[in-house]
């Protein structure tokens, strides 16, 4: 049987009901040649929660995200999503399952307008045939308009109406990050992966981004897994935190539990070797 028994959820500190398991990583090990990037890590992501993955540089956080999004195939371990075991998949197949992500260094399409960039997020929902597209007749036009309406909702939500038609290459960094989030949201994912959504931002931009992340989770009910270095942000935003160091998992739990975990403190502050 492939069906994974979903356990009951839990209630967060701020009173939100978290559902059963959406994604489960079981004993993941990932090697690049002789280098072990991830070593025997297991954790789960629950329906509707904000899950953070933290750790010092080189801990294997981004590798973990790449395993989830299908870029890397782990040598050992199992990836379970929505109750089914996921075999080795191409990234575009993973996208079709309902997993969207953003990148640490922005990966937008610079030559296209903001609107077109966000519309690409909905490519998987566009089914019009070639002929219909070539003649701009029937399905292609209907689909374009229907999806445009959805995209406009996201544009309103993220407050980027005024840059709709601007080529992405001309935008400042903070807005690019927001457009990338918009593109990921346009796919209406069940699981949203954010790789350092606040890297390189000033306090104000971080506040905006935090608000958007919370709103996305709250309004769309999207499950979010994020990697972030800003501890204040992580502790405030996330419901549960996985802490990694040198490819191992050294802590897992609510922000408060993790904060008081001796191993985590050692990893972050260093420990004297005497």
């Amino acid at each position, binding site marked *: 049987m492939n069906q994974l028994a979903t356990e009951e959820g839990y209630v967060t500190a701020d009173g939100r009901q978290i559902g059963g398991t959406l994604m489960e990583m079981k004993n993941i090990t990932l090697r690049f040649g002789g280098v072990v990037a991830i070593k025997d890590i297991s954790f789960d992501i629950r329906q509707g929660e904000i899950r953070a993955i933290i750790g010092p540089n080189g801990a294997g956080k981004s590798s973990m995200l790449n395993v989830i999004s299908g870029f890397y195939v782990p040598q050992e371990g199992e990836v379970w999503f929505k109750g089914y075991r996921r075999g080795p998949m191409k990234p575009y197949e993973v*996208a079709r399952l309902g997993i969207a992500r953003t990148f640490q260094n922005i990966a937008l399409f610079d030559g*296209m307008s903001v609107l077109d960039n966000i519309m690409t997020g909905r*490519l*998987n929902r566009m089914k019009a045939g070639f002929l219909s597209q070539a*003649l701009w007749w029937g399905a292609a036009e209907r689909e374009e308009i229907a999806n445009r309406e959805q995209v406009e909702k996201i544009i309103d939500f993220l407050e980027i109406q005024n840059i709709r038609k601007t080529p992405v290459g001309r935008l400042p960094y903070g807005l690019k990050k927001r457009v990338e989030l918009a593109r990921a949201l346009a*796919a209406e994912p069940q699981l949203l992966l954010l790789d350092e959504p606040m890297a390189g931002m000033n306090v104000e931009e971080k506040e905006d981004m935090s608000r958007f992340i919370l709103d996305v989770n709250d309004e769309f009910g999207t499950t979010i897994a994020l990697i972030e270095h800003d501890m204040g942000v992580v502790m405030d935003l996330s419901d549960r935190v996985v802490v990694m160091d040198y490819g191992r998992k050294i802590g897992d739990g609510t922000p408060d539990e993790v904060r008081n975990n001796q191993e985590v403190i050692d990893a972050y502050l260093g420990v004297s070797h005497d």
Partner: protein
Amino acid sequence: MLYREAGDFKTSYRDDGQTFPIRLDRWGYYIVLAVAFGIIPFIINDYWASAVFVPFLIYAVAALGLNILTGYAGQVSLGTGGFMAVGAYAVYKLMTAFPDVSIVIHILLAGGVTAIVGMLFGLPSLRIKGFYLAVATLAAQFFLVWLFNKVPWFYNYSASGQINAPERTVLGWAVTGPATSATAKYLICLCFVVALAWVARNLTRGTLGRKWMAIRDMDIAAEIIGVNPLTAKLSAFAVSSFFIGVAGALLFAVYLGAAEVGEAFGINKSFLVLFMIIIGGLGSIFGAFAGAAFMVMLPVLLKNVLVGSLGWPTDLAAHIELMIVGALIVIFLIVEPHGLARLWALTKEKLRLWPFPH
């Protein structure tokens, strides 16, 4: 002042996504179309048709095709000449094998054949990019020319190794063969150009176009959002080759009338069309037309000025002409690396403010 976008409000997404979203542009294009269909056919003569209009229209189709592949999907190709040869030989074989079928269908089928060949030679693009892909398509260019030279079946075992277009008619008008009038040549090319430009615009503004541009701009991110690189790249090769095949078929059947593969569809053609889209502007439909116009009309213009107005000897003018064209290309690329399409866009931005700059 002269050119305005302000006040041109859209109240539905349908309006916002139309072929020419800006009202002034729309009227401009309608006027161009009206002149192209309503006035030029009545005043065109043989010189203007064969020196300017027909080659401009045919190369515009080829440039549209290459621009879809290189400008929109980001896959460099030097095989344009070879693919045009496929279109030409396909239409020749079809014309001689099925004389009763309309030439329009033959030309479209020739495009289809080229699309299949193009997809085949596009397969390496799944593994290689940039210069390496250019070299792989260069192999296609040489292989195809060699093939059409060496296999007599393609030129129906004719003694000269040439292919000659027999006379075919559309609605009673000869469009191929020696008896074709300038008007007929012009009109059939114009119809193909308008229809294909419209298709190109539709494809590039829709789902497929976004997939191509996503692959061009960042292939890894494209894959993450759900674009299958295999289908995106191969569809770009197929559509692009279809356009180029139609251009090759028109070039042979309507314009040249007779062709020898090495001369008509050599590597020079590949570079010519590549220059057109680079000068015109990558990733722009307007750019394909601007580039084709530039590369076709500039030599004619120079020749008329040098020989006609200044009275230079023809042979000297022919050489100077090459040098001037080359120098102008370099100057253009230094002034505006993004091509004529960008220059046009900048002009429009200037015109919006003119004559009150603030």
